[in-house]
């Protein structure tokens, strides 16, 4: 059965800290891995990763994929209170685009 596992499930840090969120997966016919940030409602797209070893970066956020070891990490440097959210990892697998398998998410709380 396809599965995506995120760790930790929750994390409390102070402003300025650096955090690393983990995502491991076991799926058939891997297509891509996506990271989303969810605050209240809609998951907001962060990154899509398809190739191993190529870091994607956006401001203080970065992510990388290891297709050999079947995991990805999301790094956030110099955290701010506005980074508080649930971070979701999802893997697109199988023959049809749009079928995402999500992990349970990591709830990040950034304290001032």
């Amino acid at each position, binding site marked *: 059965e396809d599965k995506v596992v995120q760790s930790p499930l929750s994390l409390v840090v102070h402003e300025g800290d650096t955090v690393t969120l983990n995502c491991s997966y076991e799926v058939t016919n891997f297509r*891509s891995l996506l990271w989303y940030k969810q605050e209240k*409602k*809609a998951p907001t*797209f962060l990154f*899509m990763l398809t190739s191993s070893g190529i870091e994607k970066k956006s401001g203080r956020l970065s992510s990388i994929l290891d297709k050999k070891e079947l995991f990805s990490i999301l790094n956030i440097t110099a955290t701010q209170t506005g980074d508080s959210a649930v971070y979701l990892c999802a893997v697109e697998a199988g023959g049809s*685009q*749009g*079928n995402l398998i*999500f992990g349970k*998410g990591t709830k990040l709380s950034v304290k001032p």
Partner: protein
Amino acid sequence: DAGVTQSPTHLIKTRGQHVTLRCSPISGHKSVSWYQQVLGQGPQFIFQYYEKEERGRGNFPDRFSARQFPNYSSELNVNALLLGDSALYLCASSLGGTIYFGEGSWLTVV
């Protein structure tokens, strides 16, 4: 450009009733997917439609159905509602890889 739009944003239904949720994808996106997210969990895949054809179905009972219209908008229908159907229902559209989500429809079944 408008993102993925969903309606209604919130609704309350009684057990046994029927509900229809609507979604308009981003302009030009031909693929629409539906997800159910219960509190504390990641979204779970329900359906995916592309060019009006069902391309994927998750592990949900037959009470759940969907369709896609010629303008690529979509409806999700749930019959004989149960308390356990209370959740955030998310619609996503995609074109060429990146998948974008709408704000969701909060369904409460009482």
